[in-house]
Structure formats: structure tokens, C-alpha cells
């Protein structure tokens, strides 16, 4: 089923801030098999010139993907989640993410388009600190296989 284009431009702000913890960074780094001490050890991070442990480049997926408050599951959108695969992903950093950051994520559906028999939906997430400092912008494109048929 074709996706409902009325959803383009809709914006979803997280209801609560996301607190980046050392423990979560360590867990994520371990899950991607990366033993870099700058992810695991505060002293090593400080010795390398960082204020605290650094989040790996793809870490914001942890809190940006589910940030639409269920909009992607809204029957009005018409998305069959069992047919969804990840199409594209990008992280654009204004500054690194560190343990201790308290972040706000605001996500906007920027585009829905059909390519062949598939439907593509792009979600942009703007991540700032609670005081409004820009930290990262992410672009997430999901593909609904056969969605345009």
C-alpha cells in the first residue's frame, strides 16, 4: 500500500531528554565489538583530551530511531513494518557526544517517495542539548519493500 503523503513535514519531539551514560556507551561499544578504551574508560578518554567517554559515531541510533512516538506504526500512514528494511543512514556531527550529555531529539518526516515497487520514507532527527546547542543531525531512510505495488 502506498504511504500517506500527508505525513511529510510532520515533526515529533521527544517527550523527555535522553541522558547519555557511560554504561550505555560501554554496552553499545561492546555490542559492536569495539574495545577502544576511549569508549570504555573515563580515564583513557580524559587522557586523550575528552571530557568523558565518547559515543561511537553510530550511537545516536539508540535514541533517534524510536523517536516518532509511534507515528510509523500509525495505521493512517499505512506502513507494513514486516516489509521494512533500512535503506540509508547518515550522522552529521556538530560536536562529539559524551557521557553526561542530556539530549533532545526532534524528528521530522522529510520525504516519502516511490521508487519502482518500493516506498522510501526519510526521517531527519535534530539532536541538541537541553540548552539548545546543536550536537548531531541524523538522516534515516527506511524502505517498504513492495509498498508502492
Amino acid at each position, binding site marked *: 500500500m502506498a504511504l500517506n503523503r500527508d505525513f511529510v513535514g510532520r515533526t515529533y519531539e521527544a517527550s523527555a531528554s535522553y541522558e547519555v551514560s557511560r554504561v550505555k556507551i560501554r554496552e553499545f561499544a561492546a555490542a559492536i565489538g569495539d574495545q577502544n578504551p576511549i569508549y570504555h574508560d573515563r580515564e583513557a578518554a580524559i587522557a586523550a583530551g575528552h571530557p568523558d567517554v565518547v559515543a561511537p559515531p553510530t550511537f545516536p541510533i539508540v535514541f533517534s530511531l524510536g523517536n516518532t512516538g509511534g507515528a510509523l506504526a500509525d495505521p493512517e500512514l499505512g506502513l507494513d513494518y514486516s516489509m521494512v528494511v533500512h535503506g540509508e543512514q*547518515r550522522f552529521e556531527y556538530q560536536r562529539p557526544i559524551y557521557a553526561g550529555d542530556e539530549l533532545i531529539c526532534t524528528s521530522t518526516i522529510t520525504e516519502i517517495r516511490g521508487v519502482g515497487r518500493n516506498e522510501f520514507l526519510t526521517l531527519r532527527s535534530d539532536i541538541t542539548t537541553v540548552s539548545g546547542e546543536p550536537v548531531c543531525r541524523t538522516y534515516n531512510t527506511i524502505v517498504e519493500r513492495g509498498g508502492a505495488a
Partner: protein
Amino acid sequence: MTMAATVKYDEVEAGQQIPAVEYQVRRVNLVMYAGASGDFNPIHWNERYAKAVGLPDVIAHGMFTMAQGGRFVTDWAGDPAAVVDYGVRFSSMVVVPDDDSGATIVVSGLIEEKLEDKRVVVVLTAKSGDARVLSKARAVVQLS
């Protein structure tokens, strides 16, 4: 003290290759990634479900593969905070069989362009078997 990549901008050239690194993916890695990322789609851990929806077997999360590319870049640069922009397109699946060796992702890099402010564009190639699993994989890296 300021953070800094260990690779110096003045010591790299456009066209320079970054040698390939192999990353192994076993089922346990996907289970760990599901837990850490919150992506519990059963195609990444349940063979019965994966086959029922037409996949050859359990497949790795695209984001797991992207993370291996990120690891390749941060290990090369010597600083996890040196990656200022990183994007990929997921072009093929990494199929992970239920055995002791799992699958292998081979990542290599090419310095495509030197930008201003000591930044470079690194283009990545990621393969699993004969399949290119990422395309348009590109990182902008802050060197020192």
C-alpha cells in the same frame, strides 16, 4: 589538552588506500547488538522467522555493519571523535549462519579528497563474501 586524531592531514594524500580489516559477525554479536540498540526485529536473531519472510537466514542489522565501518574509520584516525559526518546506503545483506565462524565483513578505505580545515573524505568499501554490503559509504574525518 585538546583531542586529536593521530593521523596528520599533511601526511596523507588523495588517492591513498587504507588497508582492509576483517570483522567477524557471529549470532551472539547480533543478539548483543539487538540488546544494546533496542532493535529486536526477529530477522536479526530468529532463523525460523527470517526464513518465513523470505530471507536466506538470519541477517545482520544494517546498523551493525555500518558500525563496523565506523570502527574502521575511528581506528585508522586514532580518535573516535574525529568522525564529523558518516553516511551509508545499505546495498546487500550480511547473512549470518548459526555456526562458530558466522560471517565476515571486510572493510577497506580510500582517501577520496582533502578538504579545508584539515578534513578528509574517506570512502569505504564493505564486502561480505562477494557482495558489497554498503554503497555510498563516506566519512568526513577531522585529522590533526
